[in-house]
Each structure stands twice: as structure tokens, then as C-alpha cells.
């Protein structure tokens, strides 16, 4: 995320990582559109491609509602691509007009250096990595939550001369850098299943 012309820090709401009921997911974003003071909202299924069908028919309407409310919208890619259909989904994402936030590097490659955002699941641990991603089209980078302040400062210092200083995940469960095979939810928040 870049500093805007007023130098005001920007606030982004990431994608819902849990499997919420479709109506709850839609209504949550409608309320965000109408009431929340955030600059950008990221939509899309990140965790598992088998969940995509629950919300994919709602995304266009939610994106339109958010945009009408003056909020920026990004569409996130999957955090792990292992199947041909998932790779095709990444390429479809790269071809559509809404800004993309990549969650892993095959989606970054699919962007073919078109401007895009990099989400916090991509391991950007140093300034050199941030520089390479920026040269390949990344206009904003949300750093992984496991970085210490010294690393954040070093990356930000190197990026400050560029138009895209990094963002930091401020509130949320830390997602591991690796997806492991598992099934049942150990913690089931209200509204999820």
C-alpha cells in the first residue's frame, strides 16, 4: 500500500479466511461497505479451492457494493495451487479487470508483470525479495506476520524510495507459511461452519 497524497496511512480489510455461510459472508461485506472506515477490501477464497463455490456467485455483487461506497476492491488468489483447475483459476484471475492480490508465487507469475498486490502469505523476508517482486509488478506488499520490527524497518527503508512502502497485518490469526493436510476445525467461530 502506498502513502496517499495526504500521507494518511491506509487501512485494508483482508479476505475472510473462514468458511462463513454465504448470506453471512455477503451481509458482512455489505455492512463493511456501508459503515466501515477502510480504504480497500480484499475478496475471494484463499484457503481452499473446494470452498470457492460457496461465495463465487456473490463476489461480483459485493465488489460492486464496495466500489459504490468508495472502497477499493482486490480479488485474492489461492494460497496454494496444486491442481490444473487451480492454476486455471489463477490465470482467469490475472485476466479480469479488478486488482489482484496474489497469495503465492504461481499467481504472481501469472500476472506477467501487470500491477498487482502481494498478500501476507507470500514470504517476503528481506528487501531484496521486495525489490524483485516490485520489479515484476507488485505495487504493494503486505509483510508476513512473523517478521520482527527490525526486519520490517529494513524492508521499509529500502522501499521508502519506491512508490510502494509495505503494509503490515495488524489484527488476525497468524496463518502458517505452509498449508498442511488436515480436516476438522479445532476452533469454530460463530458464523462459520
Amino acid at each position: 500500500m502506498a502513502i496517499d497524497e495526504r500521507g494518511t496511512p491506509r487501512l485494508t480489510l483482508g479476505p475472510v479466511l473462514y468458511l462463513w455461510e454465504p448470506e453471512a459472508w455477503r451481509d458482512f461485506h455489505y455492512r463493511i461497505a456501508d459503515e466501515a472506515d477502510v480504504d480497500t477490501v480484499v475478496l475471494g477464497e484463499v484457503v481452499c479451492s473446494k470452498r470457492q463455490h460457496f461465495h463465487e456467485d456473490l463476489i461480483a455483487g459485493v465488489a460492486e457494493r464496495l466500489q459504490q461506497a468508495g472502497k477499493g476492491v482486490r480479488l485474492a488468489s489461492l494460497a496454494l495451487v496444486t491442481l490444473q483447475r487451480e492454476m486455471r483459476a489463477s490465470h482467469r484471475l490475472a485476466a479480469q479487470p479488478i486488482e489482484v492480490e496474489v497469495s503465492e508465487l504461481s499467481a504472481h507469475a501469472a500476472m506477467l508483470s501487470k500491477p498487482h498486490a502481494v498478500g501476507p502469505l507470500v514470504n517476503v523476508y528481506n528487501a531484496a525479495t521486495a525489490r524483485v517482486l516490485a520489479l515484476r509488478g507488485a505495487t504493494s506488499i503486505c509483510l508476513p506476520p512473523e517478521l520482527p520490527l527490525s526486519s520490517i524497518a529494513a524492508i521499509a527503508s529500502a522501499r521508502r524510495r519506491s512508490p510502494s512502502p509495505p503494509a503490515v497485518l495488524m489484527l488476525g490469526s497468524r496463518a502458517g507459511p505452509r498449508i498442511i493436510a488436515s480436516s476438522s476445525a479445532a476452533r469454530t467461530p460463530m458464523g462459520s461452519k
Partner: protein
Amino acid sequence: VTTLDEQRFLALNGVQTMSSTVQCLLGDIPALLAAGVSGFRLSPQVCDMVAVAKLFREVLGSRLDGAEAVARLRELYVGAHFSNGFLHGLPGHMYRA
């Protein structure tokens, strides 16, 4: 997921493994701004995210003290265990006020 000592450890979200604690850097905003960070991100949780966004915006605008904001966040997100250990070079599940 708990350890053999019944300590909260991980949360499984389908195929995704997450921390059982919720990273909260609301009290660390001045340090992050000083480090050159200009964008901040919230991950949706099951609580009033409109009110959460308002708290972060007020701290980002220097209209609210970070410690007071964290206290209000605890009231908004009852039951959550906050962490910021990684930011301070500590074990990730810890929270430094």
C-alpha cells in the same frame, strides 16, 4: 488444538493451520509508523469489525492512545488471546504491552 499440557496452540481452519492467538499490533502502531510502514491490514474475525476498524483508524490518526485502544479491543473481541511476540523478537504467542 492444545498441547499435552492443555495449552492452546493452533487453530485449524480447514486445510489451513493458524495460531490460536490473534495477532494484535494496535499498541505498536507508533513504532510501525516510525519504521516506515504506511499500510495496515485487518483480517476479518467474528466480532464487530466496523468498530475494530474505527479503533485502528483513531490510533492511526493519533486521536486515541494505543493502550486505551487495546483495552477497548478486548471488550469488542471477548475471548480472543492477543499476541505480538514476533514483532518484538519473542515467541510468537506472547503479548508485550
